[in-house]
């Protein structure tokens, strides 16, 4: 025991010398001599070789410009730094500086600015540093996200630059109520995180809760938005995603309008939306651009896909292994003859096929798209055919597995699709050991879990648990737009009313008659 305690203590001591604490030794305020400034910045950046320091003279005042050459645009330096400094002999220096630069007195600010691609100007005799943004921007063009394509509607998608993403949102939601809140996180590597919401709708409690959760992250480096999601979500043990991931601008705009909050992060084209319910994962912008009857039909199919992909293989296993008498006489023969000569019990059969499909899927994602297609054909057609010919797997099992695979890819959200694919395995085991009773028990636990789950204080399975019949209008149904008079209650928006009676012309017409 003592040994372990010592070891723990040793670790603690070590932690105290960790780099995050070392920084406080450096003086934080800018000096008035160039030399000291240069040496401090050099020390901060550990003498990195892409830190360029060039000396120049502005009206006989000696100075230097400092920048990271890997982060700046040389032309911008010429335009915004050198031209104003060297070619305007008439105005006094302080005016020129004020017009073109931002001043900074602490090195923290300077460090952040340099990392973002700014150029820093230090002048002898000024206890200030002057910053101007000359960053090099190499961003990809705005394209439609590959995994969230729609047939109709906007084809804009987020990219890796936070500013551009916010610009896209502002352009879509043109309202002074759209608020952005920056929350830097990460103790070593700063990550820029932005909360976006409509100030007149969003519930303040949710904003406070979210800020609190993000601020309490104490981590050297929040690498990507997946980290952030796992750090702020309510239950990490649940298979279900509790924050909606999307790369679509219109989807985020739609959710903002229902009083939800979006989190965006520099370097990630994905926005996290919360608080969301289970049913948000089954909505797609396509539903709203098609006619409502068709939209409802497609929604219903998507929700059926959830049930099919979880229950179908389990149901098949239960029928074959336990309750063969459920099949009517006409079906007993075709099913019976196909499973008669199979050497494995149905569970093993199903597991082999399900795992094969998962392998094909994973291989298809990793390979370049041309070979990916080949894998699909080899995997899907050849294996499927050969495995039946070899008498290893029954044909009905192939049908079941294929149907399951297709329906698990119907979900418009990637995270939910993963959850559903994972969930069918416990159900298969339950069905193989207890038949229908096992499936029902699994189902009870699943529903109970959905009832217990909350996302930022809102019940996850709303509007079914707790039941709110009014809000079913936009869950597995998609009623006509003029019926959606109120916002869903699950995000607790400040204004529940969404619109006045639409189609007033229709009403007036009937009255005139």
């Amino acid at each position, binding site marked *: 025991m003592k040994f372990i305690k010592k070891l723990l203590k040793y670790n603690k001591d070590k932690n105290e010398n960790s780099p995050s604490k070392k920084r406080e030794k450096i003086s934080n305020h800018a000096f008035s001599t160039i030399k000291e400034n240069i040496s401090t910045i050099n020390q901060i950046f550990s003498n990195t070789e892409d830190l360029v320091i060039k000396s120049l003279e502005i009206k006989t005042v000696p100075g230097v410009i400092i920048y990271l050459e890997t982060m700046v645009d040389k032309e911008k330096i010429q335009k915004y730094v050198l031209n104003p400094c060297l070619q305007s002999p008439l105005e006094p220096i302080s005016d020129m500086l004020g017009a073109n630069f931002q001043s900074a007195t602490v090195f923290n600010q300077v460090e952040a600015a340099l990392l973002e691609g700014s150029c820093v100007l230090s002048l002898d005799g000024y206890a200030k540093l002057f910053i101007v943004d000359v960053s090099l921007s190499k961003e990809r063009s705005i394209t439609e996200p590959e995994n969230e394509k729609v047939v109709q509607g906007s084809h804009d998608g987020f990219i890796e630059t936070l500013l551009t993403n916010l610009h896209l949102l502002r352009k879509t939601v043109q309202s002074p109520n759209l608020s952005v809140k920056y929350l830097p996180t990460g103790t070593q590597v700063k990550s820029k995180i932005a909360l976006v919401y409509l100030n007149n709708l969003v519930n303040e409690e949710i904003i406070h809760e979210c800020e609190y959760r993000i601020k309490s992250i104490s981590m050297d480096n929040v690498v990507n938005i997946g980290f952030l999601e796992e750090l702020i979500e309510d239950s990490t043990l649940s298979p279900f995603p509790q924050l909606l991931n999307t790369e679509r601008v219109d989807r985020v705009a739609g959710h903002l309008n229902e009083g939800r909050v979006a989190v965006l992060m520099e370097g990630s084209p994905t926005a996290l939306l919360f608080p969301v319910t289970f049913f948000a994962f089954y909505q797609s912008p396509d539903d709203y651009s098609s006619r409502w009857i068709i939209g409802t039909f497609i929604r219903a199919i998507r929700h059926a896909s959830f049930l099919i992909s979880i229950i179908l293989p389990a149901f098949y296993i239960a029928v074959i292994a*336990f*309750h063969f*008498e*459920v*099949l*009517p006489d006409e*079906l007993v023969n075709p099913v019976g003859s196909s499973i008669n000569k199979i050497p494995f019990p149905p569970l093993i059969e199903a597991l082999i096929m399900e795992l094969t499909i998962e392998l094909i899927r994973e291989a298809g994602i990793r390979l370049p798209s041309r070979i990916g297609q080949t894998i699909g054909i080899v995997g899907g057609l050849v294996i499927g055919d050969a495995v039946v010919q070899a008498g290893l797997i029954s044909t009905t099992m192939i049908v079941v597995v294929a149907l399951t695979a297709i329906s698990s890819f119907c979900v418009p959200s990637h995270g939910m699709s993963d959850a559903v694919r994972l969930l069918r395995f416990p159900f298969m085991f339950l069905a193989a050991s*207890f*038949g*229908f*009773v*096992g*499936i*029902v*028990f699994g*189902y*009870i*636990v699943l*529903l*109970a879990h959905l*009832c*217990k789950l909350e996302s930022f204080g809102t*019940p996850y*399975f709303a509007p*079914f*648990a*707790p*039941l709110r019949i009014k809000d079913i209008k936009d869950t597995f149904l998609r009623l006509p737009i003029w019926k959606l008079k109120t916002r869903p209650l699950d995000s607790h928006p400040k204004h529940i009313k969404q619109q006045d009676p639409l189609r007033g012309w229709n009403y007036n017409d009937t009255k005139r008659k």
Partner: protein
Amino acid sequence: MIRKENRISNTQLFFIIIQAQIGVGILSLPHDVSLISKNDGWISTLIAGAMVQVIILVLWGLGRKFPSLTIYEIIPRLIGKRLGKIIVFFYAIYFIVTGSLVLSRFIQVIDTWILQRTPNWILILLTLGVCVYLVKDTLRSIARFYVLVTPLLIILFGLVTYALKDANFLYIFPIGQSGIPNIVKGSKEAIFSMLGFEFMLFLYPYVKATDGRKLVAVSSANLFVTLFYTYMVFASLIFFETRQDLYLTPQPLLYMIKSYSFQIVERIDLFFLSIWVISVVTSIASWIFLASNGFKYFFGRASHARFLPCTAGIVFIIALLPRNETDLQKFNKILEPAHLGFIVVIPLFLFLFSFFFAKKRSGDHSV
């Protein structure tokens, strides 16, 4: 005293009572009742519902006197701390035993109808695991689940109704043939299938509603269950031609449903049973929840969740004891006076007792 996240709505109270009441009894009810009151089993069921309603009025009266206290807090307050705690403990034991009996009967049905070769203890373990998971968190999550699964009763209703295509309404006559004494005696059998309404003793302070509305919710739940049960009894009475059939089949409803099949599936009774499982699990979960809450008050702890494993453990052992139908019958007979004592006599006594104390401590228990 009661935290915000534990509050439930009046609608949720309605559904909880329904789910707690409808349970294992539904399958054997037509058999049990018609053994005694023959053709008039359905009248017995109605009378049983009326009797339950009277008991509900007593329980409601007690709850209204102490609107912010559960039964476990009322008892020590009224009759002294030490004696009260002992009674609370006995309440917990009573709920455990009732739960075990229901679980035992449930396993018996599963054993005969679906899983003949699976050892009973595995099924009991599985059921208890599911129940514990269901009730280990807040009351609110339990309520949400109960509301969510209640619409499944419509399917049970539909399956039974479809069987009536072969029924003959004349089988019900002559009405009143078995005589009033037998009808009343039969209703005693039916009451045992309606147990579960005593959940309101515990739920009362958790509901956000006025006293009157709470009574309406519980009464309408009872009305719903009574009508549902009466329908089931009535359906089986008009389905089976001779009473002998009813006496010989311990689960008449299942035989009824087994008699027909659809184009795409046969053995509809298996689907009926699968949905029935959910109703039974909610009942057993309610008793386990009540029992573990009893232990919570007895030991003076903050959360009931820590008592769930040991509650489930005791239920597991007791549920294993009865080996066959006759054991279950005996078990049932022993428990009968306990039902009467814990659900009727003690609450009634407390209710009357509270009149003497009401004046003295009227300020104490206002919310």
